[in-house]
């Protein structure tokens, strides 16, 4: 007879010395590991709960300004530098790793309206209420030398916004007209206007570097091409936009922060309808900035919170607020996709994590694997009601919570009255059912 009985050699299964790692033989047979789905579901619940426990996004507060922070500028090459301009004309350069101010310049008399760092990183521009554009050196002057701008340009009217070209030595300002300047000249090389009194902000497209967009006071957004002599087209909305930001990954999308508590993402080619309407703020949205991945953006609002939205979603995925943070005027997403900086009315700049539960610093290989696994589990089970309820839960300050409830009730009432009173009693087809996207655009003018 031929016989073999299972007998394992312990030497193959037990480690030789205590300095070795343990041996773990694997068998991926599904019958040996039953209940795959319920166990994964339990792990996903645990991961979601842990994420809420570990969500501590606030990192630091940069203290030092003596008046409200009005604008911020990201350094184009250094991740640890941030520039900010206050309402008393002061410009401060901060070191984000040490959380301290490296340099202070009394740049303007009056507000600092806008700041931008040149693409090479050696100098930056600032505009102020004293109708000047000043170019400063990025390096601090030596000991005993006074702070002097490299260049000063006097304008005729107040400038309200500033942005620099990505590659060439040109920059754009907006005030009563949108001007394109060459760095060497002291008069603008081109001026765009379209019968508008004033513009509030101007932005260059980071990908298609010859395109510009600006927000005008007649509730419109105007698109320009630097090479042409006339503006391209404009879209008129129901309320005015404060600022806009281009998507750094998709050249034709830009998001504008509007006064009617919403943000609108437009496709530059089809301005008739916004691609998405982002509705979550309860007061005017003051600033918006995209993440360098182009997948999310952060918005700052007059209700004292900042929200992070995924680019195609209607609702925000995250809201950051503090009792001490008052109306948030400007916000920036850092270039390494990890941090969000917000400047607010009460003279502080706050540094937040973009992913609230992320562990910063160097992670070991096992930590990275575990974090990736948990992330994938949360994505897989994100629509299950119990998991969704935990993942969505955020604490809101009382004023935002009550305002949001009021707004829901108001919106519901408006919709109900439209459907029952207007639509039901009109000739069929006379009163169309408009989607949320179609409601906010008044006209597109070429």
């Amino acid at each position, binding site marked *: 007879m031929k016989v073999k009985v299972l007998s394992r050699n312990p030497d193959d299964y037990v480690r030789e010395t205590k300095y070795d790692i343990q041996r773990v033989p694997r068998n991926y047979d599904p019958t040996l590991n*039953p209940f795959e789905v*319920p*166990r994964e579901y339990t792990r996903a619940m645990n991961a979601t709960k842990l994420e809420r426990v570990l969500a501590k996004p606030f990192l630091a507060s940069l203290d030092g300004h003596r008046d409200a922070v009005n604008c911020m500028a990201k350094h184009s090459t250094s991740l640890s530098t941030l520039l900010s301009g206050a309402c008393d004309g002061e410009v401060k350069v901060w070191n984000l790793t040490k959380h301290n101010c490296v340099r202070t310049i009394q740049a303007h008399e009056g507000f600092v309206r806008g700041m931008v760092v040149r693409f090479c990183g050696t100098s930056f521009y600032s505009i102020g209420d004293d109708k000047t554009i000043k170019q400063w050196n990025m390096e601090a002057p030596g000991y005993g030398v006074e702070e002097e701008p490299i260049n000063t340009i006097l304008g005729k009217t107040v400038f309200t916004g500033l942005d620099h070209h990505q590659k060439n030595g040109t920059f754009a300002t907006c005030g009563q007209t949108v001007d394109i300047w060459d760095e060497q000249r002291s008069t603008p090389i081109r001026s765009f206007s379209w019968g508008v009194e004033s513009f509030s902000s101007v932005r260059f497209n980071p990908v298609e570097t010859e395109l510009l967009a600006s927000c005008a006071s007649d509730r419109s957004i105007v698109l320009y091409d630097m090479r042409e002599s006339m503006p391209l087209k404009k879209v008129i909305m129901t309320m005015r936009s404060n600022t806009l930001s281009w998507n750094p990954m998709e050249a034709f999308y830009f998001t504008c922060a509007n006064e009617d508590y919403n943000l609108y993402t437009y496709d530059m080619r089809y301005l008739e309808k916004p691609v998405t309407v982002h509705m979550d703020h309860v007061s005017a949205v003051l600033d918006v900035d995209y993440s360098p991945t182009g997948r999310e953006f952060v918005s700052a609002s007059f209700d004292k919170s900042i929200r992070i939205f995924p680019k195609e979603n209607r609702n925000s995925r995250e809201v950051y607020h503090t009792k001490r943070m008052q109306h948030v005027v400007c916000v920036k997403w850092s270039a390494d996709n990890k941090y969000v900086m917000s400047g607010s009315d009460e003279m502080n700049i706050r540094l937040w994590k973009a992913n609230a539960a992320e562990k910063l610093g160097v992670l070991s290989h096992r930590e990275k694997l575990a974090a990736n696994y948990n992330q994938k589990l949360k994505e897989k089970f994100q629509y299950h009601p119990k998991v969704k309820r935990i993942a969505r839960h955020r604490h809101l300050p009382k004023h935002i919570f009550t305002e949001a409830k009021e707004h829901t009730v108001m919106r519901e009432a408006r919709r109900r009255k439209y459907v029952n009173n207007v639509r039901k009693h009109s000739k069929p087809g006379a009163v169309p059912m408009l989607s949320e996207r179609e409601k906010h655009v008044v006209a597109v003018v070429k």
Partner: protein
Amino acid sequence: MASAEVALKHTHVEKKKKVSERYWQGSGEEKKDEAPGGSHVPGDQPAPLGSQTNQQTRASEKKKKYKAAERHGKKAITRKPDPFPGSAPVPEEKRLKFRRKMKIDQLPQYLTKLRRVVASSQAESEITEKESARHDQLLLQEDAGFLEGDEDEDTCTISQEDIADAVDITAGAKYFNLNLSQFGPYRLDYSKTGRQLLLGGRRGHVACLDWQTKQLLCEINVMETVNDVKWLHSEAMYAVAQKKWLYIYDSSGIELHCIRKFNDVLRMQFLPYHFLLATASATGFLQYLDVSVGKEVAAVGTKAGRLDVMCQNPQNAIIHLGHSNGTVTLWSPNQKEAIVKMLCHHGGVRSVAVDKTGTYMVTSGMDKKLKVFDLRSFKPFQSYFLPAGASSLALSHRGLLSAATGDIVQVYRDVWNTPVKKPYMAHKVHGAVWGLHFCPYEDVLGVGHGEGFTSMLVPGAGEPNFDGLDSNPYRSAKQRQEWEVKALLEKIQPDLISLDPGKLSQVDYATFKQKHQDKVKVLGYDPLARDKFKPRMRKKGRSSTGGVIRRKNQVAHEDKRVSSSQFWK
């Protein structure tokens, strides 16, 4: 001088060895190499010179390839091309084992994003399936046991002593008898890893030992009738169903808990992934105890009298109970009534066993029949007649069925595929069999009987390759602690127990329909309704009626079969 030159020409210096032909190259390649060699005329100079030109052509070709690769900017590695490129193929039947049910087959054309997401996730599943199948085929360490008799020899006539003599010493030591005739017929249980054995004698003797090293962990006498013994999640605690109540003991024999809520317990089953101890009582109650928190989760009144026959389905944690009217009922802690009631036998049901994959159930009854049922469709599969009926049944991981009648234990192989004529093995023990269990990862069957305990060798019963992360018989104390913490974190809540464990991963159509109906009512129109396909009228006479109708018909099947709002029905 000339001869010296000729001699020089034919030396071994600077001459490469002739490469012998491999079987996969064939003789064609050789000829191909020779043809462009140019001046190779048949009947030419003998081997050395001919091979020289061959080598020269090969070398020059290699040089050309190197130069070409360099020109493209890549570093060339001068190595022979791999005759079997890529990884080893895995046959399709092996991959089927790792294939999960892929439900989505036909999606309408306009759901582009969904189709893309489904396609990418299915591609990922295929990669994992291939990797698992390759691991299964090539990287598993052990092979299963087997027993084959000679031409005239029947495997059921081979005795345990013969097998123990024929195998190595460690395997032979796994056949042993414990003579414990004082304390009544013995019930037994193996722990999940298979290392520890728990024995409970009817008259109160309870002992737990590591049966491979024969090291005794504890031995007590509880001074009461012991109905059943069961290990809890690890070898740290076990439960003993005594005459009145349920007791929990430590592995050193210290009584930890006496749970009075669980009275008259006759049989117990432990659900390892839910940390639930299911107990069947003489009063007809099926009670579930969560051993991690120590709370009773559910008490189901079965109203079926004395519950004596119990087993669990390891794939979905459903408890099977056998009754004296021939029915087998299936229970979960979430329902007050049985999920399924099956009539299996004409007389009472004596024993039930479910296999590890959860597809087959084997029952034996008072009508001396042994029946095999398919659990997916609840239909009978096979039916055998046993002259004396089987009082206990046990199924091993690899599908071996052991049936005990009186004091004879018989093992059958492959009960569900082909009708079985004779047993695979048989053994006579010293007393009437009272408990029967296969050891999880060993080729061993434990038999508890009136005269003590016998451990018999059944080659081919145990799963040869265990999963180290699930239950590792060779784990250290540290590994056990880590495993316990992870298992407790992953503990499945009892309200997820149902017939189909994968129910959570399926789309909840009912809720979606309900929500959609509410939305339509609120909005006043159906947001998912799509307009009928209107073919575009082409200019310059290219749009004839026939063409328009043809284009309409191309999409007609989609309109007819599935409209988006009805897709989810």
